[in-house]
């Protein structure tokens, strides 16, 4: 009888707190987040869900939250206008309103080339510097096609990132445009003995945000957003945030501008929210 009342009390409490989507467990308020598998940023096979996964879990712990990351195809995440998303906000904000957008990291875009295929060091500052080269990109990522055509840039599109870097090494293409850490991870995997033959040149000003996006219809969305912000503040102050970044970039290898870019995105996504 006592057990029956305990169970019923538990059910009533769950209903009262409106936690059908955000179940409270022993450790804290539980939040469900969707990510697209994109190592090393988000990865279902890496420890603690990859670099940004580690940041999310650390910020959650610091704020008394428990985050559960579920991996889904990008298109499903974009079409679903009720879920919480992880990733570049640009992908999701077109079709969904969010109560809170909390940047967790910034990625940069790099131009990679294979040094043995070029006599001199290559430098790139403007789109004109790409003229004369065959540039490899992932299919589906080219947005302003007509602009690049007018600028005389030739692209070769591939269905996989690995195939781009294989073509680069064989000299079938001259350059690959890829996210910095993603490109380096692919090179490590495919060409572990000749990593140093690949040169990466970060495109100036190519920073893009990676964020937690809490859906406006999610229970306690604003409170959860506020807790995540507090958690991020705590792990940055304690040094844990930089420690996580360095475990992926290497000690002293975190891009200088990453922290200032992150602060800029925090200001952008919090603007007029207060």
């Amino acid at each position: 009888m006592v057990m029956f009342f305990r169970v019923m009390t538990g059910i009533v409490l769950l209903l009262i707190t409106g936690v059908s989507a955000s179940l409270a467990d022993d450790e804290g308020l539980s939040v469900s987040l969707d990510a697209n598998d994109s190592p090393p940023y988000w990865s279902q096979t890496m420890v603690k869900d990859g670099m940004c996964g580690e940041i999310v879990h650390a910020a959650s712990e610091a704020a008394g939250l428990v985050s559960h990351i579920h991996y889904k195809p990008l298109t499903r995440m974009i079409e679903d206008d009720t879920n919480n998303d992880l990733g570049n906000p640009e992908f999701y904000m077109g079709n969904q309103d969010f109560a809170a957008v909390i940047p967790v990291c910034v990625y940069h875009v790099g131009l990679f080339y294979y040094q043995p295929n070029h006599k001199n060091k290559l430098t790139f500052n403007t789109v004109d510097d790409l003229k004369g080269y065959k540039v490899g990109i992932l299919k589906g990522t080219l947005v302003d096609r007509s602009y690049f055509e007018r600028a005389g840039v030739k692209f070769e599109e591939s269905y996989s990132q690995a195939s781009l870097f294989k073509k680069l090494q064989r000299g079938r293409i001259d350059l690959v445009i890829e996210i910095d850490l993603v490109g380096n991870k692919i090179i490590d995997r495919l060409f572990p003995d000749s990593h140093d033959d690949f040169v990466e040149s970060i495109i100036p000003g190519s920073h893009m945000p990676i964020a937690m996006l809490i859906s406006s219809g999610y229970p306690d969305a604003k409170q959860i957003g506020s807790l995540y912000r507090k958690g991020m503040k705590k792990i940055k102050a304690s040094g844990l945030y930089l420690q996580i970044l360095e475990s992926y970039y290497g000690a002293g290898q975190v891009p200088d501008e990453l922290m200032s870019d992150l602060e800029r995105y925090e200001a952008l996504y919090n603007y007029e929210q207060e």
Partner: protein
Amino acid sequence: MKQIISKAGIVTLSLLFMGSLLFATTASATGPRVTKALFAIDKDQVHALDFPPFLSTEVKGGGPFSEIVNSALEQAGIDAVITTHPVRRMVNYYLLQENALAAMGRHLNFSSEARKSLTFIPVAVMVERFYYYKPAYPNGLEWSGKLASLKGKTYGAHKGEDIAAFKSADIEVKQGRTIALLKMIAKGEADFAAIPALTTNWLLDKYMASEKGNFAAMQRPAGTDVMYVVFNRKHLQGVDDAAKFRKALTAMVNDGSYAAIMKKHIGNGEMLKLYMGDLKGELAK
């Protein structure tokens, strides 16, 4: 030897394979978005609110308003690129907090203090229609031309839109972005919203295809709306560039190149008239 897979089976498997390739592209697209803005660190920025199909990176060539503004910028000798954003507050942030050269959009609703340092230049005059949900109004929904005829209804207003006339006509107002307004109307949370026909069609096709047939427009137009490029006088080039841009745009209207771009994107039919309002008059104000 007996054929294990029929011809139809081979065709089906081939189609599935092709489909899997297409699916894989979109499902695991983690590459960087290769945009004009990616290579624009040395250029000034015009931050714009995404407004398909008139102004959007998802439309070929960026859409007619994007092409018109880019042409005017080029002819004025202004080295700037348009960067689109999904929400208004992002546009406002870049313009007012980071002092970008310009912003572009409608319903921008700046404070009177902010307006003191902004120069508004109209770039398009559009007719909007009131859209409603047919299942909620099986006999149709119309208005007389006076908002009082919609008293008691709920209007879905764009954030930043002037809602004083609706309030004074005892019409409840809920706010959101265009796509959110269409979803509110489908859920019965709002009764109607003023949106250009081409935008309604584009958004319904992309995000609410199964609901498209349930939306209808009232016969009488809701009114006209103006799209602006807003130059920031706090930017070093803001004052000069605004003057040069206005001159270049006026020349485009006068020599017919403005109309030619609109026709290229929209066609030469009745639809074109809806988006070719009295821009000359607006520019003269």
